[in-house]
């Protein structure tokens, strides 16, 4: 299922490491960049490029929370739920997001537009509360400012 391009990028990673296994996380991210998530069928193919079994690849994939082993929407919202943001209104932001999108954490909107996930401290405590949409940082959030942010993503 992997495209020639995905394969090329993954093989290109190998030069950085003594052991091909070390490229597994980045290889999974290559797959994810191309198809938003890592489907089951990708596991054996990634594994074959690195000399690993599909199970071994999945063992690593499921360790890291930013490797998505389930489909996600076109845009992924990662809301910081750690302490500094929590103190400055995380709960309001989370509630507002859930209401606006009509979904809970771990879910995707029916139009496949957004997936909502929590994430730990973004190193943006000076702009708490904060979130990432497609890894773009939004800080000093208020429920009112959410709409503007969401509006950037079709």
């Amino acid at each position, binding site marked *: 299922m992997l495209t020639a391009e995905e394969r090329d990028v993954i093989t290109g990673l190998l030069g950085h490491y003594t052991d091909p296994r070390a490229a597994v996380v980045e290889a999974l991210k290559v797959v994810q960049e191309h198809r938003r998530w890592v489907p089951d069928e990708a596991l054996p193919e990634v594994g074959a490029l690195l000399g690993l*079994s599909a199970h071994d690849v*999945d063992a690593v994939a499921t360790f890291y929370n930013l490797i998505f082993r389930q489909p996600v929407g076109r845009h992924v919202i990662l809301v910081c739920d750690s302490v500094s943001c929590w103190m400055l209104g995380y709960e309001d932001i989370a509630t507002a997001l859930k209401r606006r999108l009509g979904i809970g954490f771990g879910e995707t909107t029916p139009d496949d537009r957004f997936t909502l996930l929590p994430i730990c401290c973004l190193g943006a405590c000076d702009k708490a509360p904060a979130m990432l949409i497609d890894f773009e940082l939004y800080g000093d959030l208020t429920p009112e400012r959410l709409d503007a942010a969401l509006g950037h993503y079709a």
Partner: protein
Amino acid sequence: MATVFIDGKPYEVDPSRNMLQVALELGFDLPYFCWHPALGSVGACRQCAVSQYKDADDTAGKLGMACMTAAGEGTRIGIESEEAREFRKSVIEWLMIAHPHDCPVCEEGGECHLQDMTVMAGHAYRRYRYGKRTHRNQDLGPFIGHEMNRCIACYRCVRFYKEYAGGRDLDAFATARDVYFGRSADGVLESPFSGNLAEICPTGVFTDKTLGEAYTRKWDMASAPSVCGHCSLGCNTFVNERYGAVRRILNRYNHAINGYFLCDRGRFGYGFANREDRPTTPLLRRVRGGAPSPASATEVAGYLGTWLAEPSGVIGLGSPRASLESNFALQTAVGAERFYHAVPEAERALVATVLGLMRGGPVPTASLREAEDADAVLVLGEDVGNTAPRLALSLRQSVRHAAWRVADKAGVPRWQDNGVREAAHLARSPLVLATPEAGDLEDVALASLCGTPDRLARFGCAVAHAIDGGLPEAAVPDAVRTLAARTAEALLAADRPLVVSGTGCLSEAVVRAAAMIAGALHRRNAATKQLFVLPQANSAGLALLESAGGVEAALARARAGDIHTVVVMEADPDRVADPAAVDEALSDVRHVVVLDPLPTGFAARRADLVLPAASFADAAGTVVNHEGRAQRFAAVRPPPGDVQASWRWLRDALARGGRSEAAGWQRLDDLTLALAARGGDLTGLEHVAPPAEARHAGRPLPREPHRASGRTAVHAGKTMFEPAAPPDPDTPLRHSMEGHYAPGRVPPALLPFLWQPGWDSEQALNKFQAEITGPLKGGDRSVRLLAPDPDAPAPICDPPPPEPGPADGTWPDPADGSWPGPADGTWPVVPVWRVFGSEELSTAAPAIRARMTPPHLLVHPADAEHLGLRPGAPLTLTVEGRRLTLPIALSETIPEGTIGLPAGFPETAGFPIAGATTAR
């Protein structure tokens, strides 16, 4: 030795160990989960916490893990300190948070390490009042059940399966309290060592599905010490039984052989002994051409006795799956000159050659333990992963010596498992594989080579020549010569080199070349060892009994006309010869007698008398493994129906026929002694196990644990009285719970099960070893029959002549056009073996049948193209007029120009392999 202090008392201990191991060896009850003697320490579960004190004045101490603490001089720990006890109790409390507490319906209940440790740590009262996390279970195939909610995340399963056994399809997934152990998706566990999960898992996550089918608690099962009958390694097992059926096989620790682990063929191959269609009463064909009908034991003894009364007209076929004693009985009954081996002559001769190389040469034979200790290994010709799986597991460990060397240098103790693996990264001791097709050790091998047996033999000769230039040279391609030189170099550089070979290639040239390499090495390094895998569990034992030849000779003799009776004992002639030829040869034989625990097609078709013979579960016997080690197996149950050991049938018949040879054969010991009295290789055989009259503290040994229940209830439909346990004349074991069972003091050869107060699981083993991972208390339980001759010259052989093909003796290569494919449609056939499918007894077990894949002829892709065949297309082999049609499968590693034939399958057994074969 170092002095360490435990709870204030000094002890002298081995400083290369960790404090958990030391404490257990000294008899302390210190709970643990993640540590395992064969896997080492990783410090994950935190269950073995103890107080650690800086010096004699430190009374407060700090908590630390015993398993991660070296037993260095002056180490002071407190097992009984308040803090340590409280912490250990808390660890159980944590582990129990999400545990389902389903002990009443859990297969592990009653022999659960988690139960034991919970009691030991003193956790009883549940304080957690929130929800439990739950998991989805997986279907892992016919062997192993999966119930993830019981998991306590000790990580042992994945450490064993992946790191120790090299499995690729079991792992740890996710993180935090969601960690999950299983496969990425449902599916059959691929590793042939998956069954060990049931033992290595300290609770009921991974369980033995074959036990689960008719589940019984450990305390309700009879148990007996046994020896695996599914290959020539002779791994030690416990057989468990209830209501007359074998319920499971467990590993029985033997320091020198299987250690802690069995293969799945050995563990799940027992089902043949439970088959409904197995003969339990004698069947006699009273009228020529008529149907056989049941007969009484006395009646058939009379018939057989009459036939045996004239031994000159009788031939017997002994078997490598029958005990030494039964083979001896048959040999006695028919006379050595009419005693044949029920194996092809080529196999018989090859086994004889191997035994000759073992006792006629200077190189000692390695046990499995010694194979594991080897630090450079060449495997020549034998696909050990399929013919002797447990050996493959040992060889997989042998490559770790390089890692230990790195660890020693880095100051990482060898028991610190992850530390060693991380420090050593990919450091591996050399393992070179030269086999007909790529096997399961490829991933850890330094190099591998695939070829026809002749090519492998020439490679072997090239290795020998590279070790000792005085040995004959072999014509091999340059690349192969380079590999031979590298191999020789690695073997010469090793402290304990090992050469492994065996009968799997059915090639004299291969085993002789292997012996030549071992001999050449041995001249340079006296620590060199060799190891030959043999075809079956008792191939070596059978070979120690003089015979008139193999099955071809037997059939020729039968055909010659002066034979009125043929006795086939525990063998299926259809598996070793062409059924049509068999029938033709026996056409004038008046009495064909079959003794077998299996219902064979041959017996149904041709036997005039079928005698139900005992299986390993029903009667005791002695078998001799590949290294010439004689071992005793005991019955776990009284034989069902009229079943008895083959030798007893023969004894009874001989007595009825007025022959006196068997007069003294009352018990198994009588035959063993008679054999031992023959001297030679059999000297000392009587020491294989304590005699039947041996007593322990004046009493026999029980087969059932103390808590065995329901014996009366079992028979309640017949009588309210508790029936007496049937006698077992062959061992000091009783078929009941009466007797004396003193943990740690039962002679290992008789140890029926593992149990110790507070230790209901197999982990009780720790208490039975003098040193953990060392021999059991009470010492060795076997007799090594074949000793090398230190003064014998090292064997020399000539390489097989170069094959037709490129004139310079190089191997043809389809890539460069030097392999045009066989021009005349004649293809050499190479035997290939399958762990599930190639061995007779296990293929009669339902669990193994469920795990077998139907045989395919293996064809190299270049040849398939040449033949215009796609995978799955049928191909017909024609040999000596016999035809065999099977679908093909492509194999990159099967040598070009040959066809790999999976041997021993119900579909392929008996089809000739050795010799030239034509295919179309």
